[in-house]
């Protein structure tokens, strides 16, 4: 009897701890439908005969009207039929701009805003290239890209041709950044494969996957499209300065994800490109407006075995708390995602296997990725959006692969990523063939929500419920032009712990996260010290800043 009682107590205690832990985990809930996000993002025909139909589209959290609420951009593609001889276009999806109404719902105002483009879109990045205080959008496409200048009155003007950035190749990720520290934003565009729409419409599946299934061909076998770099002339136009800046993509890498970041904290912005199936690029900024590609020997171009992986998305943050930037890259199915630990001076080591990333990430085919502190416990965790490119894998369950997949949430536990997807709410149990990912606090409640795009599907808007149980701080950083200060660094000390974040355009996969910096603070109700290093090199310091607020700081004030 005594023994039985003892066992019962033990079980109860165990269950209590289990449920307590479960209850403490923030829950992600998909609220896209009730929020009014109904746009289906089309991406080709059901068989996916061509690579273009595999790439999906990106998304963005941006505050285009400066009303303090994050709006949503959804890039769109085309819907094709199944005609085996020559597919026909069933529908041309339109780019959507959802205005945040502030009550948990959104209204698609793309037509009114003059942004409802119906080309085959791929990705989006944001930045105020004309320094007028309103964020502009660059949309990559299969074909000429689009630059939407924000007029500041709720409408946009398409100026890509006039501005000299209407690049014709199939482009994916992009990023605005000030490459030469001249006070205006330049632009890097990753380009994927050279192809024509005729090839897309008449493509046949000729590659054997796992020696069993006929699937689309590529990217090997195709000519890679060359990445582009545009230097801002300061008058609303850009010059293709790819060659002058030493950024010539001689390797014709199959470029997808772009990260622009001062990875070595030497005061200028470097570029990292996740290339599909060939080595990733790390372009070191030489400090004089030129770059040198050092991916090969920096340790960040290949995995620990010296092999190229199939890079898709990319993000960077200080994951292990050593004040040096680390890089996360998502890769293809049957290959692990790579966490490159920064060791300083632009050297990196692939520590994925040591951290146990292989069992978590080896089978999913991963795309958008982001470091984020989803539970406000004062460290950065990782979220990855996944989905296969071959719908045919569903025909053979024995492969253990599915076209629709769950995303993966990995909590940072003492510098080790532990997957907690199953415990983090119903929204994370949804399976889709996911692609783009943007992170932002759309409901301004102090925790980070997820916007995820998926093939032939409306997006997922995963609201974070309970992530704000701990303290937080969000920063909006505006430079002298009153524009979002891309490249600014914020360092905070709270509760005896230091953290840093960098404000960036682009990253993840073909998507744009919010242009605010979010810090989880754990139990610290006050930030002891806050220091901003502006892109100009100027610094702003504050002491004893209260938590749980969105704080806007302007350079020079």
């Amino acid at each position, binding site marked *: 009897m005594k023994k039985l009682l003892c066992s019962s107590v033990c079980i109860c205690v165990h269950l209590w701890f289990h449920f307590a832990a479960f209850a403490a985990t923030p829950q992600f809930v998909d609220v896209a439908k009730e929020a009014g996000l109904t746009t289906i993002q089309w991406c080709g025909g059901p068989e996916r005969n061509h690579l273009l139909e595999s790439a999906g589209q990106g998304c963005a959290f941006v505050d285009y009207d400066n009303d303090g609420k994050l709006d949503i951009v959804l890039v769109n593609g085309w819907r094709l039929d199944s005609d085996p001889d020559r597919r026909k276009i069933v529908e041309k999806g339109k780019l959507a701009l959802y205005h945040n109404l502030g009550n948990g719902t959104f209204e698609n105002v793309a037509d009114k805003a003059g942004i409802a483009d119906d080309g085959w879109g791929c990705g989006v990045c944001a930045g105020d290239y004309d320094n007028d205080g309103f964020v502009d959008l660059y949309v990559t496409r299969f074909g000429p890209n689009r630059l939407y200048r924000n007029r500041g009155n709720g409408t946009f003007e398409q100026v890509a041709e006039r501005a000299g950035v209407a690049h014709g190749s199939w482009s994916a990720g992009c990023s605005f950044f000030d490459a030469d520290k001249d006070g205006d934003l330049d632009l890097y565009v990753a380009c994927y494969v050279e192809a024509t729409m005729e090839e897309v419409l008449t493509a046949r599946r*000729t*590659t054997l*996957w796992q020696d069993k299934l006929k699937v689309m*061909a*590529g*990217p*090997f*076998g*195709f*000519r*890679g499209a060359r990445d582009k770099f545009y230097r801002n002339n300061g008058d609303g136009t850009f010059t293709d300065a790819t060659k002058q800046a030493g950024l010539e993509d*001689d*390797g*014709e890498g199959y470029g997808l994800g772009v990260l622009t970041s001062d990875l070595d904290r030497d005061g200028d912005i470097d570029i990292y490109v996740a290339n*599909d*199936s*060939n*080595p990733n690029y790390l372009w070191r900024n030489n400090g004089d407006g030129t770059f*040198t*590609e*050092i991916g*090969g*020997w*920096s*340790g960040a171009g*290949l*995995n620990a*075995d*010296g*092999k*190229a*992986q*199939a890079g898709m998305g990319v993000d960077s943050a200080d994951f292990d708390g050593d004040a040096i930037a680390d890089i996360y890259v998502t*890769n*293809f*199915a*049957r*290959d*692990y995602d790579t966490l490159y630990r920064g060791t300083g001076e632009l*050297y990196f080591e692939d520590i994925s296997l040591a951290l146990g990333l292989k069992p978590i990430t080896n089978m999913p085919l991963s795309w958008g990725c982001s470091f984020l502190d989803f539970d406000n416990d004062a460290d950065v965790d990782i979220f990855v959006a996944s989905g296969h490119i071959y719908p045919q894998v569903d025909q053979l369950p024995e492969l253990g692969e599915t076209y629709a997949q769950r995303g993966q949430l990995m909590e940072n536990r003492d510098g080790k990523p532990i997957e907690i997807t199953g415990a983090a709410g119903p929204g994370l149990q949804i399976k889709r063939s996911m692609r783009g990912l943007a992170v932002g606090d759309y409901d301004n409640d102090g925790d980070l929500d997820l916007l995820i795009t998926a093939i032939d599907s409306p997006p997922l808007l995963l609201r974070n419920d309970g992530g704000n149980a701990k303290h937080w701080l969000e920063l909006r950083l505006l430079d002298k032009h009153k524009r979002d200060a891309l490249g600014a660094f914020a360092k905070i000390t709270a509760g005896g712990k230091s953290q840093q974040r960098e404000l960036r355009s682009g990253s993840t996969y073909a998507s744009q996260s919010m242009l605010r910096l979010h810090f989880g603070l754990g139990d610290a109700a006050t930030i002891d010290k806050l220091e901003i290093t502006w892109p100009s090199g100027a610094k702003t310091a504050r002491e004893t800043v209260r938590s749980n607020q969105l704080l806007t700081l302007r350079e020079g004030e």
Partner: protein
Amino acid sequence: MKTALTTIGLAAVLVLAVAAAPRDHAEEMKRAKQNTAETYEHLATALIEMRKTENGLVKGIIMHNAGAADMALAQAANASGGDKKKALERAAEEINNAASEGDKPVQAVRQRLSKAGHTHHTDAETKEDYLFIDSKEKKQLIDLAQRVSKMGEDANADEINKARDQLREIMSNALRDE
């Protein structure tokens, strides 16, 4: 009468044609068979020669990369300050190129010749992507490239010469006839 003669004439031509057809067809088939084999023989010879040419070309590329790396290391050993650092980075880049059997423009060409599909990780030691450098040698070269790039301005000549020796050893193993 004229019509009858014409009809007879046409019939005769037809009969002759029908009678001759099987013989011509058989001969044509025989000739085609011979031609096919001969053409395939030419193609095989060309393919074998092309493969040999590709082998020779790639070997030349690797030797050029390794030679350039060695030269840059030699320059680094005799240089100082920023010049030494630049020479070491140049060497690292060339070692990296040797590891990939060619620089980026060469890799861009090669990826068009690769079997269609994506890269997947494999733990196995493999040579499938390259003609001479296997995955073990590639890893050795990449590690060496990183070590060389990290040497910096303070590197001494002994240290640099050791890297040169290691490079020669790896290349010698990789390019040895199998």
